């Protein structure tokens, strides 16, 4: 079983040690190559750790203003309906600053794919609280733990979008080989939904953020298995053929 690095990953990325972005970058690259869509794929990124990608990722990338990647992806898709178009965003980007763009792309069932990396904080800017930060989780802007009576409960995007008429919704994680394989399957199904013109597809991926969680990479994976997954259950939520 030969395993060769994808041509899309033409140079080493700049993410922190143990960060899940590197794995998701590879999974998306492999899925695009397997579907023969790597030449025409267009990616929209905004601000966050994903904004490191234009330097290191070998597909055409448009960097938009903070949070607006979904709206930019919709515009590209409407102009170039035959190209595979996806937005690659973090949870702070897509669910805090770009909440309106993310939701309205889903409400209109636009034919794009959104890859949403959920690491429970604003990673690049120094670990501030995001809508998906867990209850009592310490961040740089919630140093005593997130107080849900003041800031509301963690935002579950699968529950929000589950009520809408969208093509595919799934949530995966990256903590071991089994979950990585499942996540790749979810990403493949999301891109297939776009190819079949079924409409909006979103894959949320629970990713370790060892730097901002103040943990070793291995402890960050344990934290996802023991704590984060109880708040954000894994699986296919819509369009999974159940």
């Amino acid at each position, binding site marked *: *079983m030969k395993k060769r690095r994808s041509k899309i990953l033409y140079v*080493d990325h700049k993410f922190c040690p143990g960060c899940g972005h590197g794995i998701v970058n590879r999974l998306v690259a492999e899925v695009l190559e397997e579907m023969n869509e790597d030449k025409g794929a267009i990616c929209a990124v905004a601000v966050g750790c994903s904004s490191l990608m234009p330097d290191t990722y070998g597909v055409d990338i448009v960097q938009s203003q903070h949070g607006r990647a979904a709206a930019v992806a919709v515009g590209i898709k409407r102009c170039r309906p035959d190209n595979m178009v996806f937005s690659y965003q973090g949870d702070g980007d897509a669910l805090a600053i770009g909440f309106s763009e993310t939701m309205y792309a889903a409400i209109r069932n636009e034919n794009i794919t959104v890859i949403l990396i959920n690491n429970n904080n604003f990673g690049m800017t120094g670990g501030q609280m995001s809508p998906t930060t867990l209850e009592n989780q310490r961040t740089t802007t919630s140093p005593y733990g997130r107080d849900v009576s003041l800031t509301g409960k963690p935002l579950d995007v699968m529950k929000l979008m589950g009520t809408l008429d969208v093509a595919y919704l799934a949530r995966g994680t990256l903590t071991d080989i089994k979950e990585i394989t499942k996540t790749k399957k979810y990403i493949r199904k999301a891109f297939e939904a776009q190819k079949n013109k079924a409409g909006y597809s979103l894959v949320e991926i629970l990713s370790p953020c060892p730097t901002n969680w103040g943990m070793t*990479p291995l402890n960050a*994976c344990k934290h996802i298995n023991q704590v984060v997954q109880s708040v954000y259950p894994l699986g296919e939520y819509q369009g999974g053929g159940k």
Partner: protein
Amino acid sequence: MEKLIIHRESCKGCQYCIVNCPKEALTMTGPINIAGYMTTEVDADKCITCGICYNVCPDYVYEILEEEAKA
């Protein structure tokens, strides 16, 4: 014959490969790379080139290639 190739200059020492290796063929005993991270070493006798280290590595350190094509 397939062989595991380790690109140590990319390694950041997260150890995901070590805990996921089913044959315990990987250890944290490689040389320190140019970025200052500890890197891994493979025991070629134990390695079955299953590709799990390739799949879990966030930094694309591993490749599995035919032995003559390793360059």
